[in-house]
């Protein structure tokens, strides 16, 4: 099933004149991008019917590298732009590449409301606990004690659990993996892309340069090993007492449901409006 080489995927979907990417050695964004492209390839989706949107940050540069229609917007606002694209042309499928700071800090309001509306979009969320592009400031996902340039003595605030936030706000599909879980990752993206409404696949993704070296993990392998240590599969987590889950991150599928998406809801709303007004347009 995954016989295609990475080169084949690259040649088929990336803009050659935009390479090399801006990503640092050991960065996990390329992995998440590869999983997304493999999922698109496996599902045989038509690239002409897909629009990639993003905000600001390292992961938000992804739409520039893929050969699709793409809208690289302002910090945190990608999902609001996506709302306009989707409702203006419901035939388009939308993929949003977002970072943890982009989605959960500056874009938090757009994020929860896009989920509440069940906007038809697949969000690939790169969670690296840090603001990589600006040099390693702490993100709202940073676990207590992790260091960043703006919390040099260790984060003192509580972190956001983005996946749980999405579940609570009503997303149709929510999964979280580390980029280490490549098969689960690809399968989750495939499920997400086939969903109506809001789907989220969150990836714990290494940022050795801005994050790892400030936290005694200078290389990607060290970060991946750390992910193995701090992640707990959902089935196992369910049997663990809350104290033991302190400082851990649960991975797995958290939501898989089929509520109608925003585009379809709006079509129904238009019909209702016309009926209520006795309108035959």
């Amino acid at each position, binding site marked *: 099933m995954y016989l295609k080489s990475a080169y084949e995927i690259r040649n088929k979907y990336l*803009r050659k*004149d*935009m390479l090399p990417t801006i990503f640092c050695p050991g960065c996990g964004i390329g992995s998440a991008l590869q999983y997304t492209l493999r999922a698109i390839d496996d599902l045989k989706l038509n*690239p*002409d*019917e897909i*629009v990639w*949107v993003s905000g600001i940050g390292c992961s938000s540069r992804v*739409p*520039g590298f893929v*050969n*699709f*229609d*793409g*809208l*690289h*917007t*302002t910090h945190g*606002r990608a999902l*609001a*732009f*996506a*709302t*306009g*694209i*989707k*409702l*203006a*042309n419901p*035939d*388009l499928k939308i993929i949003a590449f977002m970072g943890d700071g982009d989605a959960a800090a500056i874009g938090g*309001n*757009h994020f929860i*409301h896009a989920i509440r509306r069940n906007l038809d979009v697949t969000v690939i969320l790169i969670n690296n606990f840090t603001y990589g592009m600006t040099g390693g400031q702490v993100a709202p996902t940073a676990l207590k004690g992790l260091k960043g340039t703006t919390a040099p003595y260790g984060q003192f605030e509580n972190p956001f659990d983005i996946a749980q936030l999405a579940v609570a706000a009503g997303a149709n599909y929510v999964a979280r993996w580390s980029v280490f879980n490549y098969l689960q990752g690809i399968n989750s993206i495939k499920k997400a892309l086939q969903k109506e409404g809001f789907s989220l696949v969150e990836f714990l993704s290494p940022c050795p340069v801005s994050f790892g070296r400030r936290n005694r993990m200078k290389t990607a392998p060290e970060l991946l090993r750390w992910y193995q240590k701090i992640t707990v599969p959902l089935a196992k987590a369910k049997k663990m007492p809350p104290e033991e889950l302190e400082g851990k991150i649960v991975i797995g599928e958290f939501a898989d449901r089929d509520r109608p998406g925003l585009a379809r809801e*709006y079509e129904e*709303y*238009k019909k*209702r*409006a*016309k009926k209520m*007004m006795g*309108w*035959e*347009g």
Partner: protein
Amino acid sequence: MKYPFPVGRSDFIQGDEAIARAAILAGCRFYAGYPITPASEIFEAMALYMPLVDGVSIQMEDEIGSIATIIGASWAGAKAMTATSGPGFSLMQENLGYAVMTETPIVVVDVQRGGPSTGQPTLGAQGDVMQSIWGTHGDHSLIVLTPATVQEAFDMTIKAFNLAEKYRTPVVLLTDAEIAHMRERVYTPNPEDIEIIYRKLPANKEEARYPFGDIHGDMIPPMPVFGKGYRTYVTGLTHDEKGRPKTVDAEVHERLIRRIIDKLEKNKEDIVTYETFDLEDAEIAIISYGIVARSAIRAVRLLRREGIKAGLLKLNTIWPFDFDMIGNIAEQVRKIYVPEMNLGQLYHLVREGADGKAEVELIPKIGGEIHTPMDIIERIKRGV
């Protein structure tokens, strides 16, 4: 096409309602907004009409989201609008700049109220003049229109869409609480009698490769629509003609920004409109815009009756600004008065245009009341 409001005849409606109806007649099929006094009636009218004309009306989580959504809709091919007032307009400035940088046609209505901050939510003002022109960061240009009557609010909304589409630019319709909430007779033409402009689309895949290139020599690149197989990449970063980020290339940046500014500056003759009253032989000129221009017209008439040679320049477009025209007036008259419902905003542009050739005096008024004709007359008489 059937419309959910009367066309081809006059109706007695609010400014906000007139703006909504005109937008739909101009081809607007996408509205995103957030409630705010005194602009909410625009949204409410859009919410009522849009589903009936197969358009979209959606309430966003804030004004940042509202303008972001209409920019997205515009790239998906829709004519799109949002409306707000000062506090919301401030929130929109970030993405207004994005629309400038990505040359996205959108219409933003700012129904001014007293500020700063929450200020006087129900009272009119002209405090957002500078914000409408210079609110977003960086070198840029955009179009700002200023209606003085409900009929003008209607007509200029159609014009706003036409200019946005023609020049691939955001257009701000800068009105105020007085016009928004005032009811006046408005003539709605038959739709077939309204001139509608739609953006220039790429003729083929080759043209679509340059979504930010001056390939026709008119400084306005054809705008690809998402989903047509063009694989267009749009970014707020400085970009070359193909849309590729070029963030440290001074030449690319200057070429892009100068073209974005020049496409409006060099088409001023087409964009800028104004009216004059008794200006031909005037020794005293009043330069005004928006609701205050109505008091200014009355002031001119009353001053003329008393033998004072006053005239009025009523600006319908305040950006791009015709500095040369102001200079010509300054050469002709002894003094220029600028009545504004603020403590001096357009006044500074007029002074720059007059360039010392005539004295320019501000007639400011804040607090929520419009200048009466007597406010203007008394001030002018003091100087005679």
